[in-house]
């Protein structure tokens, strides 16, 4: 029993076991420092795992030494190693960032619990990603969701609407997870196994109503979790009223992990031999993706609250991911994976910028952003650069995503989807441009509720935020890690899905 052998289990075990300690520490800096340390440890484990997977290809880890398919298997391939790296990376940046923001927005008494819940949320997200067992996905999904409900509700100190937002999310999230469990149950009834790879083998050639119903329940269940349009109604309020650090973390990770689960189930578990899948792509994922891109982006333009605007934009961006997935080609899947990665970077940075504004202005209303360039230049430029990335301007990650997506659309013959992608990007220009215009061209409020002192955010917030902004530019220029790895991951996924033969 040496450490490298146990590497695949570490991303889940480290935060899970170490999280409660942050609850026992005296309030003050200690819980935060501990949580930050744990998030870095987790990130290190995930980075090693990604490197190992890059060499070996697929790592299978039998939990408790019970061999799969009977035991629970942790199965790491390039696709989920990439998502693990992303989620733990975002955590490693958000935790150091969180301290000042949490100090302002959450009772000092609750802070240790806050860090504990955030670490457990991280555990859940990593567990969902790493596991190769269908039922285990549900358990980890609920671990992350339950802690997310609590985290969102902690925003109630600033705005009591956080409570109703959290309650609605709880109802929708639980229904989503329950639908997912029904789907897994139906698959189990049809096959007698819960291991994903084994499910794939045993489902091959099976096409009956049990499997069809299972597929439908799973897609709807995960669709609720990933805020697939039109099942997104819980998301805007949840993101808007959560504490700023929580918004930054879950906006960058939670829906991305759900997208990954959808990919995993569609490609690894069902595969293209499953006849129902083509219909689901053409009549469900493609039109819903396109509709989400337009409707949610349009709604975002009219928001008075910047956090809610970004939340609606997230729903629109999820439309791009579904679109890439629905092409059912290697290019399309690559585009989806690349966008999962890149969108996490840009949304993380954008929500962090909003958190900085909340720290100084005490509000995330769009009016607080007037004249911000004169008051908080570093925050303003972080927002502008990640905003440009959201639009898809060259030299940013957003451009890379859109490029892959356009290429995939034309290669798959969906030329009209290509035009719609460009058209919806123009809507992003509108909503990002609206804020940027306010920040750069308007004079700041001299008095009144939105007056801000001329003082930028503290360094401990600026450094993590600019790290993400720098990542936005770096991965916009050097696409080897994202594009290259995503392509290899997509090829592997498509091969198991049955398109490789």
């Amino acid at each position, binding site marked *: 029993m040496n450490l490298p052998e146990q590497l695949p289990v570490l991303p889940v075990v480290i935060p899970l076991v170490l999280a409660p300690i942050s609850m026992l520490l005296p309030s003050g800096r200690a819980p935060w420092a501990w949580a930050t340390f744990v998030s870095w440890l987790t990130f290190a484990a995930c980075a090693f795992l990604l490197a190992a997977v890059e060499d070996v290809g697929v790592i299978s880890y039998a939990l408790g030494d*019970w061999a799969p398919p*009977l035991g629970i298997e942790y199965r790491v391939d390039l696709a989920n190693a990439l998502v693990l790296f992303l989620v733990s990376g975002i955590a490693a940046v958000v935790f150091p960032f969180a301290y000042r923001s949490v100090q302002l927005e959450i009772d000092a008494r609750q802070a240790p619990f806050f860090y504990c819940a955030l670490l457990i949320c991280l555990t859940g997200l990593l567990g969902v990603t790493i596991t190769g067992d269908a*039922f285990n996905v*549900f*358990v980890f999904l*609920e671990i992350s969701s*339950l802690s997310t*409900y*609590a985290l969102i*509700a902690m925003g*109630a100190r600033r705005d*009591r*609407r956080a*409570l*109703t937002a*959290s*309650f609605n999310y*709880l*109802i929708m999230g*639980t*229904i989503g*997870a*329950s639908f997912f*469990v*029904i789907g897994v*149950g139906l698959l*189990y*009834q*049809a*096959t*007698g*196994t*819960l291991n994903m790879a084994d499910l794939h083998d045993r489902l091959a050639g099976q096409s009956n109503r049990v499997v069809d119903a299972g597929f439908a329940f799973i897609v709807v269940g995960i669709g609720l979790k990933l805020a697939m349009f039109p099942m997104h109604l819980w998301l805007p309020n949840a993101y808007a009223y959560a504490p700023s650090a929580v918004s930054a973390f879950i906006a960058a990770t939670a829906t991305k992990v759900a997208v990954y689960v959808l990919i995993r189930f569609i490609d690894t578990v069902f595969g293209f031999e499953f006849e129902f899948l083509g219909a689901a792509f053409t009549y469900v994922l493609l039109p819903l993706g396109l509709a989400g891109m337009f409707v949610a982006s349009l709604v975002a333009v009219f928001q*008075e609250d910047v956090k809610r605007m970004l939340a609606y934009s997230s729903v629109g961006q999820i439309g791009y991911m579904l679109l890439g997935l629905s092409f059912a080609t290697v290019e399309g899947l690559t585009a989806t994976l690349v966008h999962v990665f890149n969108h996490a970077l840009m949304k993380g940075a954008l929500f962090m910028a909003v958190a900085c504004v909340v720290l100084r202005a005490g509000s995330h*209303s769009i*009016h607080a952003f*007037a004249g911000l360039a004169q008051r908080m230049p570093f925050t303003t430029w972080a927002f502008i650069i990640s905003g440009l990335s959201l639009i898809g301007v060259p030299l940013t990650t957003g451009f890379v995503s859109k490029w892959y997506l356009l290429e995939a659309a034309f290669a798959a013959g969906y030329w009209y989807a290509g035009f719609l992608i460009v058209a919806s990007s123009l809507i992003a220009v509108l909503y990002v441009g609206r804020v940027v215009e306010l920040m750069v061209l308007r004079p700041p*409020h001299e008095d*009144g*509720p*939105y007056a801000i002192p001329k003082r930028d955010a503290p360094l401990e917030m600026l450094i993590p935020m600019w790290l993400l902004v720098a990542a936005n530019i770096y991965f916009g220029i050097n696409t080897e890690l994202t594009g290259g790895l995503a392509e290899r991951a997509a090829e592997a996924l498509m091969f198991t899905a049955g398109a490789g033969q």
Partner: protein
Amino acid sequence: METWTDFVIARYNYWIVIILMMLGLYTVFARGNLVKKIVGLNIFQTSIFIFYITIGKVAGGTAPIYIGDELKHGHGYGDDHGDGYGEDHGEGGHGADAAQGDEAALLHAKVENDPGVNDLKSAVNQAESAGDPVEAGSLHAEPDAAMKVANDQLSGLGKAPAAPEFEIAGAAQAPDGTTLDGAYGAAEILYTNPLPHVLILTAIVVGVAGTAVGLALAVRIREAYGTIEEDELEAMDNVAEFGDAAEAASGAKA
């Protein structure tokens, strides 16, 4: 010839699941009271628990407790092993009958005798193969045939498996346990599939946690708003939102 009533009646468990599921979902969406919503969610989740238990049921299968070797070698229940444990249980009068106490004792003794992990593993393997889902699926599809198979396999018991879940408890009440020996000598032991039960235990824990968080939120909402009726909450939130917007507009003009 199967008529539609047979079709419906043979699948009564699924109808119960569907009715409960719809009741629960309807309650979640139609009720304005937050606590009633949580209760609806619980009914909905309960339907899923029943669904999973239904999947795991193998007609004529016994409780998934590993009892292979002792019985085959003619040891009676609790004669050699579980004296103290079984008797305590019976005398204590916890409502469990003696047979169940003995079963627990047997399991206890089993663990004491063979602490090796390998045995546990083989037990799981055996249970898996006994509750083979392909077989289970076919049993579900043809209830008549299922009964026949179950009858054949349990012929040694000399009883029709009307209530197979309780079969082992009923048979074990025979004082010397010979009936069981005969049964297991004649046929392979047919277990109910334990896995769905374990899964649903996990799901119940998750459900309880979700209910707890939901009710805690309802309490906090009541503290913050003074009500837990959804329409009133929505009205208050709308006022807050438009109030904000109006303030902001006047602020921008000034």
